[in-house]
């Protein structure tokens, strides 16, 4: 994925401008910055939910925001997206949540869809939750179920919006571990938005810092390298969290 000169706005207000970066195949790129700097807004632009004010997002050379809806939808199905609040379809069971995309976009029969849905739930440790409704789950389980649904169509690129937010440190660490395992065993590329620095050091190959004042990308690189040699504001941000 390549991002060229991307300018993102929300509610008519400029959030970030001139973002230029690349997501390499198989890496975990973590987008980090203080609350309100536009991390989640950037993610919505990366998956094509919002039109950018300027710039382009390319996936294998194809623009994610321009073109006919059909091919664009097919392109977006190469993503798996986990939203901040999980966004599980509340009227469906976990099994139905996972099987819906399989039924709509594959030629698999019902039994095979169910088998795959159960497998994905087992991957995130929810093998017993197939028949449960989202309302019956705890916050951590809901996040894991959302991750399982994001994996339903075996995406090449997984985009995670604050997966650890609202979770206790133990559950947040479990989720980080899960992301690493998915990358390791399934070879999935991951773009993760977070403001939790512990997650950055735990999972990131590279971290991208967004500055809410400058409304620009401040730095991008391996977290340890940024902690040692990054811009002062980035070092201060990382060091404070590191110390905590």
């Amino acid at each position, binding site marked *: 994925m390549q991002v060229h000169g991307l300018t993102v706005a929300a509610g008519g207000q400029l959030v970030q401008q001139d973002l230029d970066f690349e997501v390499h195949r198989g890496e975990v790129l973590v987008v980090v910055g203080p609350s309100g700097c536009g991390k989640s807004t950037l993610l919505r632009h990366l*998956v094509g939910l919002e039109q950018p004010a300027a710039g382009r997002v390319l996936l294998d050379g194809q623009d994610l925001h321009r073109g006919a809806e059909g091919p664009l939808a097919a392109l*977006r199905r190469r993503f798996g997206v986990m*939203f*901040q609040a999980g*966004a599980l*379809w*509340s009227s469906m069971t976990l099994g139905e949540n996972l099987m819906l995309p399989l039924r709509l*976009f594959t030629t698999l029969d019902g039994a095979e869809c169910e088998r795959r849905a159960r497998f994905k739930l087992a991957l995130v440790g929810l093998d017993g939750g197939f028949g449960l409704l989202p309302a019956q789950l705890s916050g951590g389980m809901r996040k894991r179920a959302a991750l399982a649904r994001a994996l339903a169509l075996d995406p090449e690129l997984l985009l995670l919006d604050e997966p650890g937010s609202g979770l206790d440190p133990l559950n947040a660490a479990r989720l980080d571990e899960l992301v690493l395992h998915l990358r390791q065993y399934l070879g999935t590329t991951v773009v993760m938005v977070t403001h939790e620095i512990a997650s950055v050091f735990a999972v990131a190959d590279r971290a991208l810092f967004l500055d809410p004042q400058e409304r620009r990308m401040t730095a991008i690189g391996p977290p340890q390298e940024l902690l040692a040699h990054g811009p002062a504001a980035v070092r201060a941000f990382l060091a404070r969290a590191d110390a905590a």
Partner: protein
Amino acid sequence: MPAHGFSLRSAAVQAVRQRGGGVRPRRRARHHRRVSQNHGAAGACASETTAWACEQGQWTLRLAPPAAGAAWIEAALPAAAAGSVRIDGGSLREWDAGLAAALWSLRARLQQRGLQVELHGLPPGLGEVLQLAQADAAVRGPAAPRRPGLRGSLHQARLTVAFFGEVLIVLARWLGGHARVRGADVLQQLDQAGPRSAPIVLLCCALVGVMLAYMGGAQLERIGAQGFLAGVVTVGMVRELAGLMTGVILAGRVGAAFAAQLATMQAGEEIDALRVLGVDPVAHLVLPRLLALLLMAPPLLACGALAGIAAGALPAVLVYGVSAPEYLQQSLRALTATHLWIGLCKGLLYAALVALAGCREGLHAGRSAEAVGRATTAAVVKALVWIVAAACATTVAFTAMGF
């Protein structure tokens, strides 16, 4: 510098504790007396009031205890003051949130006049708290949304037309076999829209039938034409009122539920999750609801019309002396196929408008609990307005065409 999340209340408490002024509950009364005495003593020692004074061109506000109460905020600074002014709190021993708020407010006023404000001799903690309030004031969120003007209304109208177009396209694709609708979704909506709405439709239509018979009977009695009362009630119910009442009840009961469901999904990013997968929310969420209402409208209409006609028989027989067999005979004679299909068309149109208003408001709702409420209200209001407008237009159109 105080830590992040520091509050005025905690600052005041902390300041008191730093001075060794921590107070146990049982000693609180004694402490209050001591503070009052201190204030009184300080006030007596200073024997001055808070006021602006100019010394060698420098305007200074000397805060005299007790400084709380903040009447001194209104003390006018002479218009000649320019450049910088000083606020001197050297004679203050205590401070509280009221004094901090008053100083913060005064400083903002002076800064608005273009004056620089220097704070001197404030008690420990007060200066830091004011500094913190200054830093917070520097942060500005996005501007509050403005009330929609003409441009906003036009934008909303454009969205509505675009939504209608999307629905028509998806409907055409479904009819052509190019779009799938989950049967389970339609059945779920049918259950919500149909059987659960039937009792209230029956009740309301029956009451309207009674009203119609009473009013119609009173007028027909004056010319001795009570025999036509059954025809008036039957045609009125079948052609106009059963559909209208069913539409109104569906708007309040089902349209509002559609809007609330979809707006809640919007707030929880569930609709975004569909879009990311390339699932068309109109096909997946709107079409089952529209089909459910279109399927349930004819039986509800039929039940409503029958209830109205049957209830209309009560005043006809009991008040206006029409016999029951005559009422039945007149009703059947008045009921033509034209009235039936016009009533059906109108009922289907109202049902579609209810579904479209509910889904349109739900899908275009904001991402908050308040937005869910707004969407629900807007869905009901829009559905009612659209139904009445459609009723008027179709009545005029069918009559003009000779039906």
